[in-house]
């Protein structure tokens, strides 16, 4: 006897992420998951973002690494609630780690939560953290073909950021080709070009963020 099912498989992480997303939405919190290879500039982007925020901004951060709390110390300097998630070997954050790290925080006092993932372009894409927006960074010291090599990561991105554009004169990176590759994977994806060193393009990033935050709060 064959019983037709046509039913989506949800794993434990998906279930947990769905309940986190529900909590974030009810509280009007915009949650942003930052994904990239190691060294593409996730922490630098967060530093450049936080340094322009008024101390009254209701922002908090979780930052993931396999070892060390170096990133949390870099980010805590700005005075916003920051916690390091040390995965102890796991190459990605998962919804359970995020849920645990949020314990004891008054989420009602937050309207913007950054989740800085472990530097890795492969595994984080399989783990929903309950985020509203997923941002994938690629820097110009990497290859333009990263979107083609890691299609699932770029396919599930809400925003692709090309970082370190101040280095373009010194590296063979063809930025138009990188854009084209990202669009081959996801034709309508939004792409921003920035430099965390010079600040170029960061105003557009802040506008993108602010538009989403306003939408999440309403």
């Amino acid at each position: 006897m064959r019983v037709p099912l046509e039913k989506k498989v949800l794993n434990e992480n998906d279930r947990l992420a769905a309940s986190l997303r529900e909590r974030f939405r009810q509280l009007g919190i915009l949650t942003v998951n930052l994904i990239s290879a190691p060294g593409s500039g996730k922490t630098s982007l967060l530093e450049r973002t936080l340094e322009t925020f008024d101390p009254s901004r209701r922002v908090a951060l979780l930052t993931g690494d396999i070892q060390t709390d170096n990133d949390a110390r870099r980010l805590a300097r700005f005075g916003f609630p920051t916690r390091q998630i040390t995965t102890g070997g796991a190459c990605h954050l998962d919804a359970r780690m995020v849920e645990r790290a949020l314990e004891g925080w008054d989420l009602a006092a937050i309207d913007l939560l950054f989740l800085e993932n472990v530097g890795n372009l492969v595994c984080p894409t399989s783990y929903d953290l309950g985020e509203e927006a997923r941002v994938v960074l690629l820097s110009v010291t990497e290859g333009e073909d990263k979107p083609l090599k890691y299609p699932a990561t770029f396919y599930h991105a809400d925003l692709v950021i090309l970082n370190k554009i101040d280095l373009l004169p010194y590296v063979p990176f063809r930025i138009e080709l990188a854009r084209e590759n990202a669009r081959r994977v996801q034709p309508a994806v939004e792409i921003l070009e920035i430099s965390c060193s010079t600040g170029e393009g960061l105003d557009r990033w802040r506008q993108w963020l602010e538009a989403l935050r306003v939408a999440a709060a309403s």
Partner: protein
Amino acid sequence: MHEMSIAASVLDAVRAEAARHAGTRASRIGLRIGELSRVEPESLRFCFEVLVSGSDLEPLALDLELVPRRNRCLDCGTLFTVVDYNFNCGACGGIRTEPAGGDEMELTYLELEEPDAGTA
């Protein structure tokens, strides 16, 4: 790495469905995996076998159906498989197409056996 928890979810679903059909034993589960689903089929097959082995469900078989990324042409409506990131419609050459599948991860069917029937 998350294939183990997906395999565990599949087995949970099998048990739940089998429980609705008293007196039967689940013999085969159909699972459809899309190219964009972020699941490694061989890893999933391995995890499935590990979990089934020695469990109450042994010898449950896994029927894995792999489906490619598809797009639909907004001009002529043709559904086509996307190969090498070519999103243009093969039928009319149109360049306006939209995603139409490839991120599936779904149970398609469950085969049940009635132990009393057919055996001597």
